[in-house]
């Protein structure tokens, strides 16, 4: 690996010769995958907090409808009450920001970028400049999304799914430029940037993981995290282009007078809609969900990878059924392309179509159960070390199980009739993404922090963060299943308008209070992350957890080009030595 030719092609070797790169080349427009990974991570955490804050405000309105938000309400509206306009904007932007600007950039952009080259023993990504471009295109996309709040009509307000015709008729604006400078148009423009960024990143991950493998690292010796990231990259690469095209088409519907998604004969607010018509709003839903269902697996697979690594290290034994696990991840990735229409059961679907999509949906539960089972079986006969990352990784298992299981009544069309578009759905996917993926990502932060900074995060603060979060987050999402059962629709500004909504309203108060506690629970985490960088306990060695994968062969933090001495892989990722201890991949047993 050390003789890999590409490293000599982009002139970074000069940095070894004494003259340092200037600050802006080293930390701003860097091509080093570790710096880019951190840039992704910091930006994504900012957006996660921003998207979370939007929800914290919305939760006031949901718990105490039409009462003024205390202290800060006057910042948003004159009387301090969150208006339905702002509520819809915050709702749409909460979803968009959490998914496309928060979780995916953190899971793929940060963890994938930082760890995949290290775990395959590469000196950097295969295309470092493409990598830099990927980050900056993402950054621009994020700025466009933020700026959309400044437009005269405010940000996008048609949900994160942006279903036409609503998304086309919402605040259309005057003329081409007026139409472009509206929240909904800027949302579409921002999405085009974000999708482009994902495409650039995914190409890089695939090529790096396959082409830059160090000597001895056959595919079946890849750590689970690499398998998960590569599968994710394929999903990004194949599923995202349709929505990129669809996004531009919807933008044209808004500003160019086309009607790809606009049917004939629309009458909006008593006025005939001025467009040729003949389009089909369902086409958008197909294109959107063709992206957005694989997207769900883009959210969950990197988490599966991270949890696998952490469980292997902290149970101090090999992962059970590594091969089964790998094939399950691949099968999951493949199946995720043919389940998308289960999001559209209520659009009017015949028996044949609905049976096909509910069958594929049931089939996709099989590899999910296998993944969960292999992790659970790994615990048998282990010696479990309860580090903070391990606490989060263990909590991931039952939380992901709840998220997965509650997908069943939604995936079966008949039970979906009642549960579709209710809070049950919100509870279901939040269990997958919040206490599922986000817990795994937090586990990852605690676990790799010593590698990234050379110092540990505080254990005490970590445990406070964990216990408060795990209790509060269930307080937020568990009541949603009951609310959904009661038939309360999602995205309602004030559910007490309805009799069944009023009856379920006390649950909203529980959820809101839990959400605010959850927010407070993140303060020790943020403080811990910031202060441990300088004042954390020093990691005594390059491999303080006794892990087996290649990133732990590099020094902490790894230098530019990662490995100062040549590395080689001698065995599969989770094997043990003759003295019954886990043995790193990079150590040749004497």
């Amino acid at each position, binding site marked *: 690996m050390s003789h890999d030719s590409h490293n000599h092609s982009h002139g970074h070797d000069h940095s070894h010769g004494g003259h340092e790169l200037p600050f802006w080349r080293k930390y701003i427009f860097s091509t080093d995958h570790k710096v880019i990974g951190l840039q992704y991570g910091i930006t994504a955490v900012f957006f996660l907090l921003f998207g979370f804050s939007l929800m914290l405000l919305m939760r006031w309105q949901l718990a105490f409808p039409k009462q003024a938000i205390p202290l800060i309400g006057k910042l948003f509206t004159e009387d301090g009450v969150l208006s339905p306009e702002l509520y819809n904007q915050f709702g749409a932007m909460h979803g968009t920001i959490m998914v496309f600007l928060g979780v995916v950039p953190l899971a793929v952009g940060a963890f994938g970028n930082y760890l995949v080259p290290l775990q395959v023993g590469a000196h950097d990504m295969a295309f470092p400049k493409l990598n830099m471009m990927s980050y900056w295109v993402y950054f621009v996309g994020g700025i466009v999304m933020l700026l959309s709040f400044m437009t005269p009509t405010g940000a996008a307000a048609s949900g994160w799914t942006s279903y036409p015709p609503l998304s086309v008729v919402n605040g259309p604006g005057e003329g081409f430029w007026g139409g472009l400078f509206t929240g909904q148009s800027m949302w579409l423009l921002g999405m085009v940037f974000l999708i482009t960024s994902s495409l650039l990143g995914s190409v890089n991950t695939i090529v790096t993981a396959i082409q830059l493998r160090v000597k001895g690292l056959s595919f079946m010796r890849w750590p689970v995290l690499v398998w998960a990231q590569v599968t994710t990259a394929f999903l990004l690469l194949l599923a995202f282009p349709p929505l990129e095209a669809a996004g531009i088409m919807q933008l044209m519907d808004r500003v160019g007078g086309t009607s790809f998604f606009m049917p004939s004969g629309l009458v909006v607010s008593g006025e005939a809609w001025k467009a040729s018509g003949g389009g089909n709003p369902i086409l958008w839903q197909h294109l959107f969900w063709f992206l957005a269902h694989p997207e769900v697996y883009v959210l969950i697979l990197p988490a599966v990878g991270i949890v696998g690594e952490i469980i292997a290290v902290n149970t101090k*034994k090999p992962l059970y059924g590594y091969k089964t696990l790998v094939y399950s991840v691949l099968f999951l990735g493949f199946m995720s392309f043919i389940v998308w229409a289960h999001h559209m059961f209520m659009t009017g679907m015949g028996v044949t179509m609905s049976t096909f999509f509910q069958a594929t949906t049931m089939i996709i539960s099989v590899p999910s159960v296998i993944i969960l*089972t292999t992790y659970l079986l790994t615990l048998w*006969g282990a010696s479990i070390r309860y580090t903070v990352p391990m606490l989060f990784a263990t909590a991931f298992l039952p939380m992901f199980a709840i998220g997965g299981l509650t997908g069943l*009544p939604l995936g079966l069309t008949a039970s979906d009739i009642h549960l579709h578009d209710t809070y049950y759905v919100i509870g279901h996917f939040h269990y997958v993404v919040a206490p599922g993926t986000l817990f795994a990502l937090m586990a990852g932060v605690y676990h790799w922090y010593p590698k990234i900074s050379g110092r540990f995060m505080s254990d005490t603060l970590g445990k406070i963060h964990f216990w408060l979060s795990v209790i509060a987050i269930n307080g937020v999402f568990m009541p949603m299943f009951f609310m959904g059962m009661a038939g309360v629709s999602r995205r309602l500004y004030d559910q007490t308008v309805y009799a069944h909504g009023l009856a379920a309203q006390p649950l909203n108060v529980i959820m809101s209070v839990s959400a605010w506690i959850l927010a407070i629970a993140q303060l020790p985490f943020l403080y811990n992350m910031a202060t441990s960088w300088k004042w954390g306990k020093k990691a005594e060695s390059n491999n303080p957890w006794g892990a087996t994968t290649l990133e732990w062969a590099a020094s902490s933090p790894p230098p530019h080009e990662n490995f100062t001495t040549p590395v080689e892989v001698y065995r599969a990722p989770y094997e043990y030595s003759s003295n019954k201890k886990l043995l790193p991949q990079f150590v040749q047993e004497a």
Partner: protein
Amino acid sequence: MEQPKYGFWLPPNISTHGAEIDNLISAVHWFMAVLFIGWGLYLVYCLFKFRERPGHEADVTGNAHFILPKYIEIGIIVIEACLLIFFSAPIWARVKQDFPKESEALVVKVTAEQFAWTIHYPGRDGKFGQLKNELIDGTNPTGLDRNDPNGVDDIISPNFLNIPVNKKIIVQLSAKDVIHNFFLPVMRVKQDAIPGMTIPLWFEATQTGKFEIACAQLCGVGHTQMRGFFNVMTQEEYDAWYNEEEKSLLGDAATATEPTGENK
């Protein structure tokens, strides 16, 4: 008519097909509960039994091979397949595909718009008058052409769907502007209303009472306010209401010549 009781679980069901859906929801949740409790107990046991402690070593031999999970996995596949083949798919076919004959049912048009429902009865001739976009105004939300012979006796009922009990109802659902969703929680009915399409659905109420129509698809700033009402009445009450509506539309003369009672 007593008020329906709502709480933290399924609302009461008053439709002929709803019991099947409720049973499926219960069955799936029992299945989920068994799996989750099983996994949970195993997990808690492992977390305690295999914790790191002095004198306890991890078993890394890799010899452990578990047979049971394979059978659990097969069991899960079989149960899911049964739920799909014997319950979900047939129920879906009955609810969404096996429509009653129009001659035996009451057919109404429901048109959704921001942020109201327009219920359109075809009148005694059983035929809907033509809808013309250019006729839409504040008093005529769907643009019904009263000059069309079929449209003369049509009844328009904004936001109120009145139906007789124990009678099959066919709704022809569409939308004027954006996508809405026609959701009757107590009826276990939910269907997107999509502009440019007319989608039929049917149901039959088994009890009288006053209930709500909810919009279940984000349709704009007034989404929450898009509440409609539906009253399930006895046939006599329904006829009385219908005759009243008709009288106010056509005057006494028209109703006197027509037989009262069944309308198609």
